[in-house]
């Protein structure tokens, strides 16, 4: 790890002010990705602004037809939340499938989506549910938030405060884990909104989380596992590596979509 200056602000205003004036500063949430990258000397922030002391960033609350989850809320807390489990069980299950027990006890929602790893689970849930990311400056629709590999709409010094998840009619998440890392080789989040509209978000494809128009169309016509599994995606645009070819990834999207729909239907 390279040297850095450490800061532990007590509130959000202080944190954003610090990040605003520090050139190469980074916010530290759960640290499950950032600390690992710093240890391997792959990240070299000049300053770390530890958000761990900011109580206002944690917690889960109902807000009318939405559930609002604070950015610093741990995956384990979302997985175990009675509120989330009752109203958006797919999101609880998604949180419970991230990383491993210890990662879930330390990693946070905000940290995960700000990092936007192309194989992370949470981006699929946020995009699939059509959530709104509330930052220190504004509200950003999920469709506008994830902008590429490890890239988001966040501007320098802008911090995620919370994410507001609209409660859907039904939703499901199915993940095919990479046998080594347990990140998503492919993860598919399907959601039927209260309006009946269908959203499908895919993670693990290689180029960042995305919505599948083909699957959304098919599932809008028939929200059934068979309809999802019948959709055959082109392998173009999927990445290939040691663990999966583009063809296999494309195939897994159909399979996982079918399983996600089955899960959504209970």
């Amino acid at each position: 790890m390279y040297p850095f200056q450490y800061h532990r602000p007590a509130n959000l205003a202080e944190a954003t002010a610090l990040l605003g004036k520090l050139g190469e500063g980074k916010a530290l949430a759960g640290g499950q990705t950032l600390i690992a990258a710093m240890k391997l000397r792959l990240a070299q922030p000049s300053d770390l602004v530890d958000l761990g002391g900011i109580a206002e960033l944690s917690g889960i609350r109902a807000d009318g037809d939405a559930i609002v989850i604070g950015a610093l809320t741990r995956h384990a807390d979302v997985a175990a939340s009675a509120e989330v489990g009752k109203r958006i069980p797919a999101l609880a299950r998604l949180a419970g499938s991230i990383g491993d027990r210890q990662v879930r006890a330390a990693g946070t929602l905000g940290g995960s989506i700000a990092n936007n790893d192309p194989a992370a689970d949470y981006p699929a849930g946020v995009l699939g549910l059509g959530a709104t990311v509330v930052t220190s400056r504004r509200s950003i629709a999920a469709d506008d938030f994830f902008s590429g590999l490890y890239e988001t709409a966040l501007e320098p010094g802008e911090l995620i405060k919370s994410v507001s998840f609209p409660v859907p009619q039904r939703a499901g998440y199915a993940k095919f884990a990479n046998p080594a890392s347990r990140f998503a080789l492919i993860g598919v989040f399907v959601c039927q909104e209260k309006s009946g509209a269908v959203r499908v978000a895919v993670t693990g494809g290689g180029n960042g989380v995305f919505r599948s128009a083909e699957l959304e169309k098919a599932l809008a016509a028939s929200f059934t596992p068979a309809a999802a599994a019948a959709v055959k995606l082109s392998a173009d645009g999927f990445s290939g590596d040691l663990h999966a070819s583009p063809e296999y990834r494309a195939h897994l999207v159909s399979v996982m979509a079918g399983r996600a729909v089955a899960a959504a239907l209970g």
Partner: protein
Amino acid sequence: MNVKLSLTVNGKAVAAEVDPRTLLVQFLREHLRLTGTHVGCDTGQCGACTIHLDGRAVKSCNLLAVQAQGAEVTTIEGLAAPNGDMHPMQAAFKECHGLQCGFCTPGMVMSATALLKDNPKPTEEQIRAGLDGNFCRCTGYHNIVKAVQSCAAGS
């Protein structure tokens, strides 16, 4: 610039000034000489460094010591009763031969106790899934699972 750090480790208050780069596991092993917590990888996967931070199993190699500011930390050295009697999970690992070389063992035991805290009566499948953050290269996990089952049955 060093950072002032105070926390509780195995029930004792600890204060130190540390380089902020210090990982929690380094703080435990090198500053406090609590060498029961092991380091088995550098990418946060093997789980040998698992400790309890405010009652939750976390990987101490993947946290800065300063992130434990004000926290309660329990390591394998703090798990047994003050009179030295092993924690039921430690006893179950011994009884069921849930360890061989012993290197992953402290982390495994710390994870297993957290697992039972969350789910006191897990199925075999839940135990196997619940130990997904800990590698063991010796036991094939068979007797580790048995130990957790035995501990759950006894509690």
